[in-house]
């Protein structure tokens, strides 16, 4: 099927099989491999992207469902060579170990801060409950999100 959508601000038009997920489309057809596949059943959050501004598991969305939509992946956060403040906070706080879960974590955190610019630690944990970190670096991830929220409010 023919699919047209906007990915990270750029219009994309491609053929895609109806049974391919948005995750497969992003990685295999568009070549944006920042979005990760792990469980492929909605449990781990590694595949999180923003779909029309909302955090979703791209493994649970068919690519063809996104016709006319806007998708943001980890590759779309940097602006003119400047990392997104969340990306910078993850580096500054040492929140990245192997890095596999981080694109999903950052997009889930992006959505969280967009909905609530001043989350409590409990709210950060809730917001990231659908993102598993196999390296278990949770406390630094929470530090990074708290810090990015603080920086954004200043």
């Amino acid at each position, binding site marked *: 099927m023919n699919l047209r959508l906007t990915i990270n601000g750029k219009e994309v038009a491609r053929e895609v099989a109806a049974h391919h997920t948005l995750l497969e489309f992003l990685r295999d057809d568009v070549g944006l491999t920042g979005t990760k596949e792990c469980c492929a059943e909605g449990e781990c959050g590694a595949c999180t992207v923003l779909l029309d501004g909302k955090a979703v598991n791209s493994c649970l969305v*068919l690519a063809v469902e996104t016709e006319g939509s806007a998708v943001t992946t980890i590759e779309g956060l940097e602006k003119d060579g400047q990392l997104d403040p969340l990306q910078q906070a993850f580096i500054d706080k040492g929140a990245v170990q192997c890095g596999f879960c981080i694109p999903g974590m950052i997009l889930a955190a992006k959505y969280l801060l967009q909905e609530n610019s001043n989350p409590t630690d409990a709210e950060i944990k809730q917001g990231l409950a*659908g993102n598993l970190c196999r390296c278990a670096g949770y406390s630094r991830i929470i530090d990074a999100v708290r810090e990015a929220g603080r920086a954004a409010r200043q």
Partner: protein
Amino acid sequence: MQPFAYFRPESRGEVFAALREFAPDVRILAGGTDLMVRLRSGRFRPNAVVDVKRVSGWSSQIVETEGVLRVGAGVTMTDLVSAPSVQQHFPALVEAASVVGSVQIRNRATLAGNICNASPAADTAPPLLVYGAVVNVASRAGERQIPLSEFFLGPGRTALAAGELVESIDLPIPVEAAGSAFQRITRRRGVDLATANLSCSVNRAGEVRMAFGAAAPIPLLVTGTAASLEEMTAQARPISDVRGGAAYRQAMLLVMARRALEVSLGRLRQ
């Protein structure tokens, strides 16, 4: 995933035509949080998938009409928990919808999909039963209403006939004062399916409506009084599975019933 034909109809007529053409090998796609998992595992192998999200008139709205709150089939858990009208009248439903999966799941998962999937553990089923929800169904033949208490037939089985579509769910706005609450137990605090869940409401006369899930083949509605919680929960028929043993579930239902009643009584007094 096995290949299938994908349809994205823009009118109800086209939905019914597609459901008819591909029956019985056709699946309706809403948020996909249940369907996609089953398509991938191969448990469902439909020839066609009908994505109903862009049907004109498909509603993601919650509107109040003639004493009922009508929740469109496009309403997600995220929409539901942030709606002031739902928060005001149906606190137990808000509590249930806010523990479904993760933020990412709740941004896609619809209330209608949660009941159409008919899992015995569906978290929104107990509060919807307690609040007397009615399911509005449409097909080529016309429209009909099914009380939610007659909607579930067994695990994964509903009263929907082939070619029928849920268009909205009606919640009667309570006329008499009542307090209500939701409880669930899970193996871990985050994203997990319920080992058991329960909702109840109580009025000034002490009459209790209670419903529980993951404790029988379908979510079960029972009635009684504040003094008969034991008899009410004894109507459960739990099984033993990976999430818990039957005896544990049975024992915990009474504990959850007491907790839910206490919260409900507190809300009734407010």
